[in-house]
């Protein structure tokens, strides 16, 4: 199974994972990662908005998933990414990789998340009491990508 989705509306991670595991029964292990909008005491962020560029964002996600499939022996892959306005607690991204052996699943999920966070076509802004503010790229995100230079 390969499921790559740009979600314009909220999605249900539990429901998605249940369907994913059902479709991946030949796999010995499934690794999943769920990213959600942080909710911390005193955090001034009231909302988060993710924007995309239609012609590139979903095709880029699909190419990334194919790259992971080409490098690790995966039985199934899923990558779901929200766009639009979200509030603390809302799911942003869900990645799941199913493989015969767990290390391939861990590595592929880690690879997908590093790239979704730092090279996928998304722009993020945060809303605080002062209004909306665009989030600048972080150096750490680019450093994370260099871990995967050996993946063609």
């Amino acid at each position, binding site marked *: 199974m390969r499921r790559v989705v740009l979600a314009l509306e909220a999605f249900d991670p539990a429901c998605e994972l249940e369907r994913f595991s059902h479709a991946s029964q030949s796999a010995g292990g499934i690794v999943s990662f769920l990213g959600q909008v942080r909710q911390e005491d005193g955090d001034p962020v009231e909302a988060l908005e993710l924007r995309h560029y*239609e012609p590139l964002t979903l095709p880029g996600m699909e190419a990334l998933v194919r790259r992971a499939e080409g490098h690790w022996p995966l039985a199934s892959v899923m990558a779901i990414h929200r766009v639009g306005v979200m509030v603390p607690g809302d799911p942003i*991204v869900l990645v799941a990789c199913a493989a015969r052996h767990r290390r391939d699943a861990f590595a592929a999920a880690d690879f997908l998340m590093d790239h979704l966070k730092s090279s996928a076509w998304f722009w993020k802004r945060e809303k605080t009491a002062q209004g909306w503010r665009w*989030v600048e790229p972080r150096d750490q995100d680019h450093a994370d990508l260099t871990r995967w230079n050996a993946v063609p």
Partner: protein
Amino acid sequence: MSLTLLFLGPLEDVAGGPDMVLDVAEPLSLARIAERLAPGLAVAIGAPKVRIALNGNLVAAGEVLAGNGDELAFLPPVSGG
């Protein structure tokens, strides 16, 4: 005869909106397009890290020739999901 410009991410704030339509008589290079914009916006879209897509395909700044019916998108560095 109209050329649509799209401004992604923080470029939207510089441009004052997510898109803009230019009335064009003929296909224009990026330099000719920049001449039609406010100076601050012209500088912002010319930054080395800003990528450019013509009708959905990434192109080099020097290859841009955009005219009637085209859509030119300016893509600043992404800020992660």
